């Protein structure tokens, strides 16, 4: 076997080779200074400990990106996102996050588990009634989280039909003209504006009504800000969840040993299986992998010494997610897909201040969704090549043909 070269960026290369290169990079140095096509230079952090330290350190901020500095990334970052929660620093970040965070805590989300299970069962009932084959994206992976976030927000059926179109516009990185993006986002904005006006007159027990009430109780908030948050909840509320349901099913079907381990004790194994899908699922499919971008960058607000390297004030830093998620000092036998992995502090949902707002909800939906598919359809298998989506920040697919 040849010695992997510790070059970053790298790829695309087969997953086994990517894992070797990532190990060589981590052994060689804590970070690499790269030049992105957009936004210029950025330190990419490869080791888990360094990444965690940065995510916990308030000297690393996002404000410069909100103010118009281009985000160092492989492509132009969707402009809408740079004006939302993910790009705010305290105290603004906290003020806005507090408005919605209560709805997504572990405690609150666990109360929804029974309802989510009902929806998952209904969706599988419909698949069984129609009979195989099915496109898992359309029949299950998108429908489950859209039903859940639609109910939480209080968006009626007529609005949900447009969720995919709206979300793709907000997360578009290519393939849509500026006019098309603006048109879709304006349509979402006007829809939410109208819906929230109705909720002001007729409040319900849902998140949009709660946002309207919060706006009315706090003069510092504007209608525009409230609608922006609602838009973010639509953009982030289902599409990553759908993508990881799809990835989880693919990864489990691609590894017969781990598939069997799940089927032997679905309820016992599903919590750790979901974490392992989040950490490593992409490496199981046999698709070529690249090392390039990572999580959204931060900017150092002052000089900071990090792992012996001086990060100058104004320098951008970002987590090289895949490499950090395979750090051998943290993850035992890190190249292995292990659905029963006990210690799994992956950074896929980030960490610290910007840890994914919807993480408890996403985890619960992934657990219920994937468990239900394999419990109800134990013979589930792929029935053709998946069709991947291009030009959307979060990736995903349009077709995952399955049979059972």
């Amino acid at each position, binding site marked *: 076997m040849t010695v992997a070269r510790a070059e970053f960026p790298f790829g695309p290369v087969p997953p086994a080779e990517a894992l070797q290169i990532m190990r060589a990079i981590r052994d060689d140095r804590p970070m690499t200074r790269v030049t992105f096509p957009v936004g210029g230079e950025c330190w990419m952090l490869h080791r888990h400990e360094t990444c965690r330290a940065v995510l*916990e350190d308030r000297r690393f901020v996002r404000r410069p990106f909100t103010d118009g500095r281009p985000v160092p990334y492989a492509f132009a970052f969707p402009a809408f996102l740079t004006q939302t929660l993910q790009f705010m620093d305290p105290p603004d970040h906290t003020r806005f996050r507090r408005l919605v965070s209560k709805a997504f*805590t572990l405690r609150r989300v666990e109360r929804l588990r029974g309802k989510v299970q009902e929806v998952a069962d209904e969706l599988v009932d419909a698949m069984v009634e129609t009979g195989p084959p099915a496109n898992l994206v359309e029949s299950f992976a998108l429908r489950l989280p859209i039903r859940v976030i639609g109910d939480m927000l209080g968006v009626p059926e007529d609005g949900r039909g447009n969720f995919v179109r709206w979300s793709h516009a907000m997360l578009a990185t290519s393939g849509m003209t500026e006019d098309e993006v603006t048109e879709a986002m304006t349509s979402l904005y006007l829809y939410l504006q109208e819906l929230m006006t109705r909720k002001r007159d007729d409040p319900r027990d849902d998140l949009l009504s709660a946002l309207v009430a919060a706006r009315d109780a706090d003069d510092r908030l504007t209608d525009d800000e409230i609608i922006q948050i609602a838009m973010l909840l639509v953009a982030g509320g289902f599409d990553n969840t759908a993508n990881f349901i799809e990835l989880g099913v693919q990864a489990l079907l691609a590894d017969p040993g781990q598939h069997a381990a799940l089927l032997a004790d679905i309820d016992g194994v599903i919590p750790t299986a979901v974490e392992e899908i989040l950490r490593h699922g992409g490496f199981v499919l046999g698709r070529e992998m690249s090392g390039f971008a990572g999580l959204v960058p931060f900017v150092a607000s002052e000089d900071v010494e990090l792992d012996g390297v001086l990060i100058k004030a104004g320098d951008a830093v970002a987590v090289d997610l895949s490499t950090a998620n395979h750090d051998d000092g943290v993850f035992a036998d890190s190249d292995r897909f292990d659905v029963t992995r006990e210690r799994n502090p992956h950074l896929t949902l980030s960490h610290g201040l910007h840890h994914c707002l919807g993480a408890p909800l996403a985890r619960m939906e992934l657990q219920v969704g994937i468990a239900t598919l394999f419990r109800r359809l134990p013979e589930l298998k792929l029935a053709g090549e998946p069709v991947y989506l291009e030009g959307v920040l979060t990736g995903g697919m349009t077709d995952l043909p399955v049979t059972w």
Partner: protein
Amino acid sequence: MSGGRWTVEVDRRRCIGNQMCVTAAGDHFVLEDGRSRPVADSVAPSEDVLEALELCPTSAITVRDETGALVEPS
């Protein structure tokens, strides 16, 4: 709010350093090595502590009243 004192704990294995507690109840929680810990183990009942309890995304905070019963967020 009852008169007795509350016992506050943070499960540092669950804490992800999200800092909602520090923001909601800065007198009661501090960040140490990126994770939260209570400033004092025993506190007078406080709306701020209740809010921190409710906002914590990973439910890493536990509050008990003087009888040892769990205090639940509203």
